[in-house]
């Protein structure tokens, strides 16, 4: 738990990101403000297309050519990253201070280059060192990310590695310059459950060792529950709810968070339909009026279609963008099984514990 540390390492203010697609302008990020605390693990969850990847790519200047930061700022280390225009400016940040672990280790490694060379490449780009030194550092890195026999592995090519090992290599590349912020974009989606657990352990170990700040981008709420200190729920280019891990899981306030949690098979009753969110996410080519989730929310209020809700504070660390938290709004209770989440889970857990004891 890193709740005591409140040093802000990166501050996003009213960020708007737009894309030009076939002559039409799409607003991918609709005015996000957020603080990233030093040393924390922040998980950004949301459906694909909610803008979670785009949001984090702006921290590294990795937007596609047809995208741009329209307004807002990203303060980091006394600079405004959103104002960066040239590649030259980014070179001191990207890979060095802020690094990224990509989703699919099958596609994010170069199949024609040995693994050692690929890790070294990242290191020598930012540091003037001799070849021998660079190799030494690379071997250390390989050992750091838990790859046995680094000497032998150094010369091997990605196809000689299993999926989990490849992801370790990708992490080693990101860690090459010991960044301050590590962005993990779906780091375990392409991996097996057993391997997934190991990679998460590795990331947590690296975080402790180097005092990293990690942003996890994921849609797997199981992963989130495991690693996150804080959770930001994104929907249609906006953070609709943000709070500590416990607050978002056990006391969610936004109807979208309710829906997201309800659709988990772990909470489903066998033989019955799983809760599924009706409709589709809004078209970001059009301006969105009111609460973006309102059209899919069966119990939306009238005001949800008219005015965009501001953030309402639930606790100092927990806020949500929904009119339901306005004192004037009627009392809309979350769905029954959301209210029961804690007790259902408690029950299941006690069962499990009892079993463990009897064994």
């Amino acid at each position, binding site marked *: 738990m890193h709740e005591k540390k409140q040093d802000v390492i990166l501050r996003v203010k009213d960020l708007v990101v737009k894309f030009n697609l076939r002559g039409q302008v799409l607003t991918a990020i609709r005015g996000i403000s957020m603080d990233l605390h030093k040393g924390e693990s922040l998980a950004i969850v949301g459906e*694909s297309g909610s803008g979670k990847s785009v949001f984090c790519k702006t921290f590294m200047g990795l937007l596609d050519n047809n995208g741009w930061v329209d307004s807002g700022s990203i303060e980091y280390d006394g600079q405004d990253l959103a104002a960066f225009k040239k590649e030259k400016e980014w070179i001191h940040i990207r890979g060095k201070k802020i690094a990224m672990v990509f989703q699919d280790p099958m596609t994010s490694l170069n199949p024609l280059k040995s693994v050692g060379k690929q890790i070294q490449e990242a290191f020598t780009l930012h540091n003037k060192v001799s070849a021998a030194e660079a190799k030494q550092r690379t071997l250390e890195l390989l050992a750091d990310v838990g790859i046995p026999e680094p000497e032998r592995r150094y010369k091997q090519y990605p196809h000689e590695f299993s999926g989990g090992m490849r992801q370790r290599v990708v992490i080693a590349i990101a860690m090459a310059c010991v960044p301050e912020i590590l962005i993990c974009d779906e780091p375990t989606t392409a991996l097996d*459950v057993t391997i997934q657990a190991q990679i998460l352990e590795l990331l947590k170990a690296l975080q402790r060792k180097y005092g990293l700040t990690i942003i996890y981008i994921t849609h797997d709420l*199981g992963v989130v*529950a495991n690693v996150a200190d804080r959770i930001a729920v994104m929907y249609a280019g906006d953070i609709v709810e943000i709070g500590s891990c416990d607050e978002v899981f056990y006391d969610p306030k936004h109807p979208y968070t309710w829906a997201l949690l309800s659709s988990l098979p*772990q909470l489903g009753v066998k033989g019955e339909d799983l809760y599924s969110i009706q409709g589709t996410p809004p078209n970001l080519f059009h301006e969105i009026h009111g609460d973006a989730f309102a059209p899919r929310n069966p119990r939306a209020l009238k005001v949800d279609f008219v005015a965009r809700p501001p953030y309402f504070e639930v606790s100092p660390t927990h806020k949500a963008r929904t009119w339901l938290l306005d004192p004037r709004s009627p009392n809309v209770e979350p769905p029954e099984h959301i209210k029961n989440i804690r007790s259902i889970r408690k029950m299941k857990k006690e069962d499990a514990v009892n079993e463990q004891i009897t064994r």
Partner: protein
Amino acid sequence: MSKSLGEVLVSVRNMEVTFGSRRNKFVAVKGVSFDIYKGETFGLVGESGSGKTTIGRAIIRINPMSDGEVIYKGQRISGKISKELDKKVTQQIQMIFQDPMASLNERAKVDYIVSEGLINVRPDLTREQRAEMVSKALLEVGLLPEFASRFPHEFSGGQRQRIGIARSLIMEPEFIIADEPISALDVSIRAQVLNLLSRLQKERGLTYLFIAHDLSVMRFICDRIAVIHKGVIVELSETEKLFEHPLHPYTRALLSAIPLPDPDSEKRKILEIYDPTQHHYETDKPVWTEIEPGHFVMGNQEELERYRARLQA
């Protein structure tokens, strides 16, 4: 939960699949046997490289088997079979693939993608009849018939997976092999596709072989689950029994690794690591044993004793 286990639809007996030539042989599936009953959802779970997909592909005759046989409705469908039987199998057993981004032909319109199988198996149909069947299949999976004239890239992941499902439904199959049908999808879309699959099962009496690595989804959808490790099925049981009394150490490791959307238990999670060297199979060979009704496990005599003791406790 125990549906009356009626008629056996598919029976896999002693399946072995090998890849590579004699010198460089790799046995992907070793002596796998199981029955799938009509109308049930049978789950096959294991990590990548365990051979679960290979089993599915061997049943549908994509991968040749080096030993054993597959019986479908009392007829052997592995090895050399007659042309008519081949046609029947092609029509009645269908597959849904994992990645809807990769499994649809990017250059073909939805219309063609969905009806391609029909063109081969039902040459007697006219173009109009086919078009009608396509729109019916699309409606059935919750897509609009006018989507038929679009290309795959115009669809989202969930919609693409629905196209994949429509493509197998149009053949009017009885048995569907779903190879990780939802692992590439978003949480909220997953629920939709799972609901669609179970609705289709109810309406059409389909039988599923559900291949996945995600046990939390398996628990929700499967009637029985087989756990496979390195080409060998180590445990097979009714779903709830498996979750209540996992016996084989590999099953236990797999269950302990499931990520739960619950911070409290996640942060106190104890990972069980499976170490294959813990078995002492040199003299005492493991046997496939029914340890309680409907619950099979692979183990040698000494291990079975322990498992029995655990069940009694």
